[in-house]
């Protein structure tokens, strides 16, 4: 077990911090699951953090000058480089502490945040570099499964069959024709101490994972499932329901990978059919029963693989 976690108690409904380092009043859409995930993550992290955000929904909705939702030090430089900016923050803190220009014993968590586009596509190189170099930082991917900020274009994290503005179904297309890129697995391949998936529907689990990740020395990666009513074509009030269904259908399993070892943090004993999840969203409305069967087979197979990994 990792030494930094030996004293870790964990959040329960009884000891949740009241403080909101991410302030209300931001401009996210109603029912936005991404901003909820962000808020929960910040609640877990507290105030001793420095956050580097990538361009995307969360950056835009949180910082229209002269307003800001950030009660913690926050920087946004560009779309593809949150991990590189965070690398610089971390390097600076290290040297400033050595030079007695920053309190030596003050632990500051350095956190990089980006959407699925800023992580899986344009920012993948910067992320890989930062993970490989071993910076002491946490990278949070807020995955709403498309480029939402620019109007719902597909990313490599968009699920099979989903309709987006650049993966429209048509005579020769059924929407996104590729399978979702497995980002947590890519993070794991960097041999970093901590990787996890999380969902705002399981808020205690999410907060505990974020807290753990921030305590561990070295790079940590958390991939958070973030329902987006605007981009998915679902009701705002169904965000949490969908986040829960994604887990219960095995589409988005919750697990941790601690020092390379997989632990499933929420076992799905009686999985629901994927259709229950798909049918609540306009982005999947065009799918045929055959497509849905294909998705079901793939989801089952992927989950089996995950179970095997957890048995190792």
């Amino acid at each position, binding site marked *: 077990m990792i030494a930094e976690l030996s004293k870790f108690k964990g959040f329960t409904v009884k000891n949740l911090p009241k403080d909101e380092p991410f302030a209300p009043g931001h401009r996210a859409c109603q029912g936005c699951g991404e901003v909820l995930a962000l808020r929960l993550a910040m609640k877990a992290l507290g105030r001793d953090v420095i956050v580097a955000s990538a361009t995307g929904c969360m950056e835009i909705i949180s910082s229209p000058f002269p307003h800001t939702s950030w009660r913690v030090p926050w*920087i946004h*430089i560009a779309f593809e480089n949150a991990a590189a900016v965070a690398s610089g923050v971390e390097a600076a803190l290290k040297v400033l502490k050595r030079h007695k*220009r920053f309190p030596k014993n003050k632990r500051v968590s350095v956190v990089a945040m980006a959407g699925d586009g800023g992580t899986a596509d344009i920012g993948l190189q910067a992320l890989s570099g930062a993970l490989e170099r071993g910076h002491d930082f946490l990278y949070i991917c807020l995955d709403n499964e498309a480029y939402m900020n620019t109007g719902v274009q597909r990313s490599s994290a968009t699920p099979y069959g989903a309709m987006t503005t650049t993966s429209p179904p048509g005579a020769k297309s059924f929407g996104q024709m590729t399978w979702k890129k497995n980002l947590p697995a890519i993070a794991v391949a960097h041999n970093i101490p901590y990787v996890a998936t999380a969902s705002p529907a399981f808020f205690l689990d999410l907060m505990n994972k974020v807290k753990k990740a921030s305590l561990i020395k070295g790079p940590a990666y958390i991939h958070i499932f973030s329902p987006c009513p605007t981009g998915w074509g679902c009701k705002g009030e169904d965000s949490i329901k969908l986040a829960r269904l994604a887990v219960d259908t095995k589409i988005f399993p919750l697990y941790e990978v601690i020092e390379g070892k997989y632990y499933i943090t929420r076992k799905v004993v009686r999985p629901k059919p994927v259709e229950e999840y798909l049918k609540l969203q306009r982005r999947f409305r065009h799918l045929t029963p055959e497509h849905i069967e294909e998705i079901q087979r793939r989801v089952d197979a992927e989950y089996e693989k995950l179970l095997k990994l957890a048995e190792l």
Partner: protein
Amino acid sequence: MGKRVAMEVSIAIAEAVKLARAEVIAAYPITPQTHIVEHLSELVANGELDAEYVTVESEHSAISCCLGSVATGARTFTSTSSQGLALMHEILFIASALRLPVVMVVANRALSAPISIWNDHSDIMAQRDIGWIQTFAENGQEAVDLVLHAFRVAEDRNVMFPMIVNIDGFTLSHVIEPIVLPDQEDVDAFLPPFRPKYKLDPRKPISIGAVGVPEIYFEAKKAQDEAFKNSRRVILRAWKDFATRFGREYHPVETYRMEDAEVGLLIMGSLAETAMTAVDKMREEGKKVGLIRLRLWRPFPTKEFRKAVSGLPVLAVIDRALTPGASGGPVGTEVRSVLYHCARRPRVVNFVAGLGGRDVTVEDFEEMADRAFFYKKKRPKEAYELIGVRES
């Protein structure tokens, strides 16, 4: 006062960065910048420089990492060339707009294609509008001095702009020259530690990099522009202070034998040494030729430049970059517009020379001067002429 020793200019630059006590260095190797960053890695590895050297995976990440670092309050350095500088392009504008004073040395090199590792100014001229303060060094000593000057100016609370010191790739970066490295205590006195007013610190949180809605974007750019123009004063003051402490004087514009000149050759960077030889030779032959060198490129030293060319009949501007389809090279068009409102302005003749490592020889300077004399009476037909290129 330091000792004069022979050393490669790249090594001397790395030593200057060490003397400046840089705290974070993030860089990605590219010829001909490599010797600078290799030597810095060595200094850090040996414990001679107590800094974090971040071995980023690209120049885009190098500059992004530098911005994170400088925003957190650490003195930060990087260096690149050509393709690397082009890859940084997007972030360079953000550095100046967010007032994050990184110092960068650019070892100037041609841009691909054809791919070329050799010297010209096409890399930096493509970054003309990034809003960084930019200087050009003539020789190794000047490169060292300009690096120290850059930290001092960039980090000044009245400036807070990133700064580039340009050195010609190979022809300056890789030559061995006698160089005086100043003593540490003198550098410390010239260059106090970096203490920005605003930085990323949980004890006093701020937001950097907010969205600029149409109601505010223009005003933000205006403020940036005004602050940039005002940096002039600090640039000059720092050179003055440098001269007092180290005995070497620097000005935005240098002139050589311009007193009674009929033709002035305008250059930047290390071409100056050859150009001076050419001027001396032509002077012996009775030709009234002089030399002007721009040390400061951004902000453009309008006042000093106009003074340097006042009364001059013909100005020959030598560009080291092509801008296809434009009305001249980047320096040529700039200078023409700077002179437009002067009642007695020289005729401006624009040459493009020395692309992709092509030598610019004494003979080339003579040819340019001769053509310039010819154009004293006759307007040139073309917006610019190429020098030293084979006709077939």
